[in-house]
């Protein structure tokens, strides 16, 4: 009960949605996510034209997934049947739609709406296989597309954002003015996951879209920027694999989140796990999920408002250097050394950056200042 929420006018049993992606490519897979506890599922992206996907199209490295797949390989007619089938089983379904002109966007939206979709997510940020500048970075095109869709259908419209847009507040305002009910962020980030050194070629044959934990900090900043700029609901996406990730996005202003590559890491069971942990955390604090939404935003400050205090790194106890020397290696001020086998910090040299505090595994360094 603590998890019940309202998102873009939809009553949801919890704030965990499943993102558009290859894990949502058939009704069976979507129903599996719903059974696992997701409050709604976004379909794989539906387009007017099915394009063949190159193989391989998915690569995993350093916790991140690079994807070069282009949209769903099922035709619009097939998706209309799929959506009907999912609705028959009672599941809330959000259709992900991609097109190249406002009239095309409106047409596909109308078709999925007639089939019974509960809402639509417009894909305007695909980082690969389309243009260099993502479609969503063209304000006029973006406004016209969304406006055309909101005039055509009467279900909530969510617009999927990308970090490939420099002026996020301006673009978010356009989305709001065009009548959208929510913004989801972030779409995958244009990437090359690595280079095969022996053969001197990228790991996948073209640019791809990166997802997974490596993009979470970019997602958090984007979500906070949107939440600080507009009134519409925000849906957090990017590297969500635990309840803590969910809370971070929500505290920064998201009222719901989407899990995507978490499913690639752990299967749909990750949803149930997140929900249980979330419920437990909230009941421990006697909070409802809506209590946390936006609660960390007020602590985001302008540089000028941050108090400048004479912090220095200090050891809270004796630390034997033979265990680890991460703090020493990383110290840009050369303030940390080893004396008689123990770590020593020179307060004269320390410039208070705080890096050693976050690098220390055993938590024995703290930043403080003495009167």
């Amino acid at each position: 009960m603590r998890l019940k929420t309202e998102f873009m006018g939809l009553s949801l049993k919890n704030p965990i949605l499943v993102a558009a992606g290859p894990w949502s490519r058939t009704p069976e897979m979507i129903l599996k996510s719903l059974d696992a506890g997701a409050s709604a599922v976004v379909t794989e992206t539906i387009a007017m034209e099915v394009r063949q996907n190159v193989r391989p199209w998915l690569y995993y490295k350093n916790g991140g997934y690079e994807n070069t797949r282009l949209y769903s390989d099922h035709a619009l007619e097939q998706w209309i049947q799929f959506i009907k089938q999912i609705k028959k089983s009672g599941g809330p379904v959000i259709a992900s739609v991609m097109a190249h002109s406002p009239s095309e966007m409106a047409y596909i939206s109308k078709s999925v709406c007639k089939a019974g979709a509960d809402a639509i997510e417009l894909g305007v940020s695909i980082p690969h296989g389309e243009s260099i500048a993502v479609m969503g970075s063209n304000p006029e095109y973006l406004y016209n597309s969304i406006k055309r869709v909101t005039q055509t259908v009467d279900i909530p419209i969510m617009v999927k954002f990308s970090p490939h847009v420099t002026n996020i507040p301006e673009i978010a305002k356009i989305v709001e003015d065009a009548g959208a009910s929510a913004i989801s962020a972030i779409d995958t980030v244009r990437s090359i996951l690595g280079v095969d050194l022996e053969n001197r070629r990228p790991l996948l044959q073209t640019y791809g879209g990166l997802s997974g934990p490596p993009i979470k900090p970019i997602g958090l900043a984007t979500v906070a920027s949107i939440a600080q700029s507009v009134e519409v609901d925000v849906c957090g996406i990017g590297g969500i694999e635990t309840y803590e990730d969910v809370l971070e996005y929500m505290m920064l202003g998201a009222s719901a989140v989407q899990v995507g590559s978490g499913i690639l890491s752990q299967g749909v069971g990750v949803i149930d796990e997140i929900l249980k942990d979330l419920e437990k955390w909230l009941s421990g604090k006697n909070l409802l999920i809506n209590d946390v939404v936006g609660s960390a935003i007020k602590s985001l400050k302008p540089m000028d408002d941050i108090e400048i205090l004479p912090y220095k790194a200090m050891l809270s106890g004796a630390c034997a250097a033979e265990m680890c020397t991460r703090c020493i290696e990383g110290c840009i001020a050369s303030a940390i050394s080893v004396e008689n086998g123990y770590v020593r910090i020179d307060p004269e040299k320390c410039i208070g950056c705080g890096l050693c505090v976050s690098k220390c595994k055993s938590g024995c360094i703290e930043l403080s200042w003495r009167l």
Partner: protein
Amino acid sequence: MKPLNIRDVAKKAGVSVATVSRVLNHPDQVTEKTRNHILEVMKEMSYTPNWFARGLNLNKTGLIALMIPNIVNPIYTEIAKGVEEIAHSKGYSTFLCNTEDSEKKESDYIEMLIHRKVDGLIFIGGHLGQEMMKRIERDQLPSVMIGSIQGEWNFSQVYSDFFEGARKATLHLIENGIIKVAHITGDLDFIENQEKLKGYKAAMENAGLKIKDKWIISGDDTIEGGYLAAKRLIRAQNSPDAIFIANDWMAFGAMDAIKTEGLNIPRDIAIVGFDNNRMSALVDPKLTTVNLPAYKMGLTACRLLFDEIESDLEEKTSIYLPVTLKIRQSCGLSNGIKTIFGE
């Protein structure tokens, strides 16, 4: 032996004639179990419905028509592929009418389609006479127009932008430092080729470049025409450094001509085509061209047609599908990220 009919199927399956009829005509109204049972019985008995009788019954013939001006032009093949795919998925057959821009063939086909009571028609705007279009409107035959034309017509339509494509193609050459850009046109009787010519001129004029009359030359929409036009351009005094060619077919001819003159593409003459014909990625050098989403236009037009056939809505829909520049090698500017992402 008397051919099997729907009554025989109903008897064998132990259901009413109405139920069998629903399986054939509105399968979504029958439970999956019953539907499968009846389909199984039909298969066992080798029963096939009498489509003619079925058409009379439902006032539908299960047939749509696609009227194109030139079956040899790959653009129309792509459009036909899109149309056929959707029609087939709806259980319809597609009747192909190749008019070769002959008024006689157009009028013969239109009469035939109306008499045979096809359920809908897709035609190419600008390639069907106005009288014929009025006839279709009068007869209230559900129809979708591909392309856009002047005048007030009450058809759903799918269109792209030939002017913009030609402007982009020409501009691409200009932006990379080429001043002397020629244009081999298609048949200027048709609006799409007039638009391409306008787009070429607009790009040149906006860049403050001179357009020489002798640099605009017709290639007749054929490979041979493209070959001859290119030869004339090369052999003239003050020959161009680049040619924007109104379709890929003519561009293939022009490439052949340039090579036989001992010149190099793109070093001596750069080429940009139009259409993104499937062959354009296979010729040497690979052809830089304007992608006209012909297959998608076919898919979209057919979807709009079925929207009309399947409902009584009077509302017409217009869908615009943009052109994009497909940068390969023949323009001489193939290195770099633009070959992956376009402009």
